[in-house]
């Protein structure tokens, strides 16, 4: 879009509350609700059939059942989240297992991960964007088990990137030497997705 364009007669109504504007990335606006966005039907996998797997460029894949996953140390965190469809939500509270915890003891030379989900959804990230305290497999939202429409029983949570990277219904991470575009990344959306650089689409 061009620079210097003024929309005649537009003043804007939804100025962000005092003290929050520096937390809202360019082109985003704040919402109170939690909008739902997904490309297809909501998968409903029974917890007894659920598992989480680390695979790919590792010595041997590791898999956790739901009970084993629940027994891992969980962290509570409060983060702002930003959806590429323009909404942002401040101070969302989650509980989940840090990806660092899942990768403990995993030897890998991989530089990338592909998160994959029930329903066939995938999203790709550089490994360094999901390690070092940046990403979780979240199972609890605002103190309640994560609802299916929001990605329950568990979703990837990578709050510093646009929210499509926080794959709903996640079932595993595939560690890879090379980068491979995921679902939205193959369909016109940015490969990296940094909201602060407004990396929404190809070419941003």
């Amino acid at each position: 879009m061009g620079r210097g364009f003024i929309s005649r007669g537009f003043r804007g109504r939804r100025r962000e509350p005092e003290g929050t504007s520096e937390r809202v990335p360019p082109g985003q606006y704040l919402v109170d609700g939690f909008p739902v966005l997904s490309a297809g039907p909501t998968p409903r996998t029974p917890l007894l059939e659920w598992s989480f797997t680390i695979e790919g460029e590792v010595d041997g894949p590791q898999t956790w059942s739901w009970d084993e996953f629940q027994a891992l140390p969980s962290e509570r965190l409060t983060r702002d989240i930003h959806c590429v469809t323009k909404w942002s939500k401040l101070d969302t509270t989650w509980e989940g297992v840090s990806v660092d915890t899942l990768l403990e003891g995993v030897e890998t030379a991989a530089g990338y991960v592909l998160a994959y989900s029930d329903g066939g959804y995938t999203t790709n990230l550089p490994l360094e964007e999901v390690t070092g305290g940046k990403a979780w497999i979240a199972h609890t939202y605002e103190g309640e088990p994560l609802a299916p429409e929001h990605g329950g029983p568990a979703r990837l949570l990578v709050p510093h990137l646009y929210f499509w990277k926080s794959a709903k219904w996640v079932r595993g991470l595939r560690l890879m030497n090379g980068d491979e575009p995921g679902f939205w990344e193959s369909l016109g959306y940015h490969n990296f997705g940094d909201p602060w650089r407004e990396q929404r689409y190809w070419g941003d």
Partner: protein
Amino acid sequence: MDVPGWRGHRAGQHMDIRLTAEDGYQAERSYSIASAPENDRVELVVERLDDGEVSPYLTDELRVGDGLELRGPVGGWFAWDAEEGGPLLLVAGGSGIAPLMAMVRHREAAGSDTPVRLLYSSRSYPEIIFRGELETLAAGDGTLEVVHTLTRSRPEGWSGYDRRIDAEMLREVAYQPEERPLAFVCGPTPLVETVATALVELGHDPARVKTERFGPTGG
């Protein structure tokens, strides 16, 4: 809208609109394209939200001759090309008709005979968007079926559905799972959740059910 340099879109895609105030304040929202790719002009459907920021400007303030900053077309998943065939099952709620209307119009413009069933939920008869055009298209085309349901009020003598879309209605209107329809579902989140879940439970292949959610905050 006239969009100079427009290179066309796929039916189902959306556009981003960015508004800029004199002090530099900006607001961006997405709107689905309702026009066919074959059309020279680009038509968007904007539902006015009383507490909205961009939709009241577009519906109340914007005049013929004003400029708009646009980005797009965007989105490659919720899209249909006539060559993909069908049958097509389109399910819309309210302004969620927009991307599905682009598909209906594209099918007509491309001369496709892919069978289409459109199940369209509106609050009341006057709120049915594109009612006249849908009637005209369906009247002249035996392979396009349009079924309405009105959830809040009905005109006297209304013989169509009078409730929110549910599994029973889908069982009656949707194609059989064995016909492997390609389903596009667009509307408010509760409608989309209900319809997508019901279609899967009726035996439709989840991979052939594509969804897009509309609403004040869902983009």
